[in-house]
């Protein structure tokens, strides 16, 4: 079979909504794009545990602590589903994680912002998970099979994340004056970074066009961002709070909310590594990885020792069936 035949088979599959599976032929650039996007997504799930982990020991009640733990555990799972999807494209787990640690791979910039008060945990669930869900719902229809399947699993788990966040803020919004102030303050600090999660404007997003053609992405950054604004602008009313954007107004012609300009200088600064917590986040991840090295090695050595024992005494294994 000639190269252009393979290319045509691939293009036909994309055109007719047939998923691409790991062993199917695919253009190398498609594979590279997926590896970059999926591993970046996986890193975001994992690094995303850190700002929330900051509040596990200080959650205001046992109930809130249990919920937060469950939420963070989900995020670890999401990281795993995505790392596994990346592996189907021929990169090892170790390589992928090394690229996070040495700065070659990125993760969502939102996790470079600090969690200063308990209300931040509410704002993260409501806004950050809310924004992530917009993106992930779209990715359930992405053209690469393992990525799409991981997304379906993730989306099933995400809706509780957003609800528990909203629930935290809702409770605060019904509380004392101090609690209301805390609630509004968290919304003020997390709103703009949440909008940045959708990435640069379409005009400044070099990968969007090709990704749309390959159906890796099904909606553009700006389309998703607009959907998010429309959703949150309504929900914030239920909290009796406001979004920190004087330009936010309903546009009856467009049937969408208009909103102000994102501070792109801040966006690029955080992407490039100069956000409030970039160094700390990577240092924490590296630390966890390095401190866990002896456990990984010991578990492997133990498994090999046990295996060599059962290999010499196969009868011990007979009951395994």
């Amino acid at each position, binding site marked *: 079979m000639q190269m252009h035949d393979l290319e045509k088979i691939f293009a036909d599959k994309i055109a007719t909504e047939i998923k691409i599976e790991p*062993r199917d032929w695919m253009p190398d*650039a498609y594979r*590279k794009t997926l590896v970059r996007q999926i591993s970046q997504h996986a890193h975001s799930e994992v690094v995303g545990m850190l700002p929330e982990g900051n509040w596990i020991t200080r959650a205001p009640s046992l109930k809130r602590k249990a919920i937060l733990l469950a939420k963070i555990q989900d995020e670890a799972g999401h990281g*795993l589903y995505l790392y596994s999807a990346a592996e189907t494209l*021929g*990169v090892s787990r170790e390589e992928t994680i090394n690229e996070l640690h040495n700065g070659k791979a990125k993760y969502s910039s939102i996790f470079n912002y600090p969690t200063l008060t308990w209300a931040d945990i509410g704002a993260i669930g409501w806004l950050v998970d809310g924004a992530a869900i917009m993106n992930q719902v779209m990715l359930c229809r992405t053209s690469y099979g393992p990525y799409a399947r991981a997304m379906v*699993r993730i989306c099933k788990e995400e809706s509780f994340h957003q609800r528990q966040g909203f629930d935290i803020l809702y409770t605060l919004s019904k509380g004392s004056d101090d609690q209301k102030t805390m609630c509004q303050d968290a919304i003020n600090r997390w709103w703009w970074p949440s909008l940045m999660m959708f990435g640069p404007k379409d005009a400044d997003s070099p990968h969007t066009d090709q990704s749309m053609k390959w159906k890796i992405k099904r909606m553009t950054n700006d389309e998703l961002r607009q959907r998010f604004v429309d959703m949150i602008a309504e929900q914030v009313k239920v909290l009796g709070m406001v979004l920190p954007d004087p330009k936010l107004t309903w546009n009856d012609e467009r049937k969408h909310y208009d909103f102000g300009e994102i501070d792109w200088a801040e966006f690029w600064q955080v992407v490039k590594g100069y956000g409030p917590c970039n160094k700390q986040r990577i240092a924490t991840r590296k630390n966890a990885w390095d401190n866990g090295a002896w456990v990984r090695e010991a578990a*492997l050595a133990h498994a090999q020792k046990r295996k060599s024992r059962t290999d010499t005494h196969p009868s011990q294994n007979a009951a395994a069936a």
Partner: protein
Amino acid sequence: MFSNIFYGKNYYGDFGESGATDTDQAGKENKPGNDWPLWEVFIRSKQGLDHKHAGSLHAADAQMAIENARDVYTRRNEGISIWVVESRHIHASNPDEAGSLFDPANDKVYRHPTFYDLPDAVKHM
């Protein structure tokens, strides 16, 4: 036989990718490195149903694979039974040969009940 092409070098060329690695992954096999072995996880969601592929994970041995699978794939009562098998033990048909592999089934419409036109008088067949 096309697996080499799968790793083939930048067919569409690289398109601008700031911060991306220069190391060319083409031709490089999925090197084991220091990763724990990879396992495939199959879950039976309820009694009476087949085990179904749920995903994969790394673990040092089968017991750890089952315990980790419990933690990642059944946190919301998705399963009552777990199978794990080391991924390297799975043999798969080649997708590029799917045409010829499944060809024998293509021209045998008479295997389907809809192939047969029955008289209207026949009920419940």
